[in-house]
């Protein structure tokens, strides 16, 4: 975009006094971020990897001993680990496309200049402002046996449902809760993306006589591809480490159906004092996260590749 021409850049490279001065300035300006990365990202990652290769008896005075991949081997044979992986995947495969499709539908609906669009946008975005712990509790109470949701269901002739206390409904209930929060949030990103599509494309398609559906699939979707993928990846990252609603409302239950990876790791490390297995799972989670985030970073578009 506005990067310095190659020739000028070359003369400022690290060899010349000016290049050295620039490098020094860059180091000073970047130092706080680099220190934070080492402190908050690198050290805990190393801690987790190191711990996952050790095994010790909880509370014992002997230092934990190096066991190589043994903890991982045990983990891969543990049924509860695979159940946690399975539930995490089921939850993510449903919740992320669902949220993004609904967010896209609302973004398109609310960027057509309908009366009051700004107000409707703001209202739909509002749940994103409520901290996750607060909205989890709010919905937890609303979904209780004699709460208002069941009140509405009985009023229209459907029997009251157990929701969070049923192994069959718990994942669906959590999807409902996080979607109430997420849809409006991702909708705002997509509205911003829609606004960036130049009007001429829409005019051209109108002159060609294309209907709204045709316009949506051959203009909007292709031109929105990048923000759409970005939002999908970012949503996936945040839902993969979902914690607050599970810890506050279900503790992973009933029957482990909501025992998503992040909660399982927490539970293993603190409630079951199984820190080594917890670390091994964390390493697996980290590998998945780094892979997803790398895709996300490419989708951000750095402004230097063209």
């Amino acid at each position, binding site marked *: 975009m506005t990067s310095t021409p190659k020739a000028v850049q070359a003369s400022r490279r690290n060899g010349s006094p000016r290049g050295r001065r*620039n490098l020094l300035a860059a180091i000073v300006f970047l130092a706080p*971020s680099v220190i*934070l990365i080492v402190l908050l990202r690198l050290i805990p990652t190393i801690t987790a990897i190191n711990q996952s290769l050790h095994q010790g008896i909880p509370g014992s005075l002997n230092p934990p001993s190096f066991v190589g991949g043994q903890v991982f081997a045990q983990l891969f044979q543990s049924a509860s680990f695979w159940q946690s992986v399975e539930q995490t995947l089921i939850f993510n495969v449903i919740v992320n496309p669902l949220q993004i499709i609904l967010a896209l539908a609302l973004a398109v609906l609310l960027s057509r200049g309908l009366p009051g669009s700004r107000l*409707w946008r703001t209202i739909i975005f509002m749940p994103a402002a409520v*901290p996750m712990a607060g909205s989890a509790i709010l919905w937890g109470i609303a979904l209780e046996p004699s709460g208002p949701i069941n009140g509405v269901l009985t009023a229209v002739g459907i029997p009251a449902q157990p929701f969070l206390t049923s192994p069959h409904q718990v994942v669906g209930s959590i999807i409902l809760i996080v979607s109430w929060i997420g849809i409006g949030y991702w909708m705002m*990103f997509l509205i911003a993306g829609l606004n960036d599509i130049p009007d001429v494309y829409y005019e051209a398609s109108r002159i060609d006589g294309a209907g709204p559906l045709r316009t949506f699939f051959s203009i909007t979707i292709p031109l929105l591809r990048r923000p759409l993928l970005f939002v999908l990846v970012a949503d996936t990252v945040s839902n993969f480490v979902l914690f607050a609603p599970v810890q506050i409302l279900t503790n992973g239950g009933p029957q482990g159906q909501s025992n998503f990876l992040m909660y399982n790791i927490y539970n293993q490390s603190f409630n079951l004092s199984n820190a080594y297995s917890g670390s091994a799972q964390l390493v697996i989670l980290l590998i998945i996260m780094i892979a997803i985030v790398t895709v996300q970073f490419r989708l951000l578009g750095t402004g230097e590749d063209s």
Partner: protein
Amino acid sequence: MNKNRPIRAILTIVAIIVSLLFLLPILWLLASTFRSQNETFASSDPINWSVLWPQHWTLGNIESAINNGFLRNLGNSILVAAVTVIVGLAISAMSAFALAVIPFRGRSATFAIIVLSFLVPFEAIAIPLSQSFSQWGLSNTMLALILPGLGNGLAVFTLRQFFLGVPTSLSEAANLDGAGWARIFWSVYLPLSRPALIGAGLILFLFQWQAYLWPVLVVSNQQLDLAPVAIAKSFGAFTSNYGQVFAETAVLAIIPAIVLLALQRYFVTSVSSTGSKE
């Protein structure tokens, strides 16, 4: 145009209904904040309109939240968020400036490493990090609550994107006048970047206001509990008397709601710089 009018009317009605569906839980939260504790479920089973409008208005729930020390938790949350925004903005803006304006070898690689490491969700490394924090004697300190919020990949990214759009002629002119990078950063770039700074500040604020797992991990002293943790604790403590929980949740939600409503357009401009730039 005329044949579109019925369609527009239908779409408007759809928009209104969807907005109402999103709004109802918030209205219920507000109504439940101002009704007495034993009325919580009175109108939900069977359901009637009082579910959204208390029959007997009361401030009792707010009083009991205050008596339970909620103001201290709220104060902790505000302090942590405020320090995070100020210090976090300084740190993010400095790195964004180096990555957008100062030419040096390996700049794009450095940029990739910095943003990538901050994009890995913090929750994923929170548990091993909390073990290190307790070894370093940082458990139960404000510093422990603030530190993780200071580095934010999206904030760095947003600011760098904005800085890239500032014409380089400005910094070159300042450079000819003998200004060093610190001067250019402070007197050329920062004053021009108010909207991007507000957008990045919002990202930093929301991260801290949402924090839950980390405060659970590093704080065991109740005096230091942040508001979301305090609410989860009251929720666990009362099994049927939810009045106080509603009042606390309402207060916790209203603060970011006001901030976001006031600054909404900056949030939108800041996010529009992500994803769509080729």
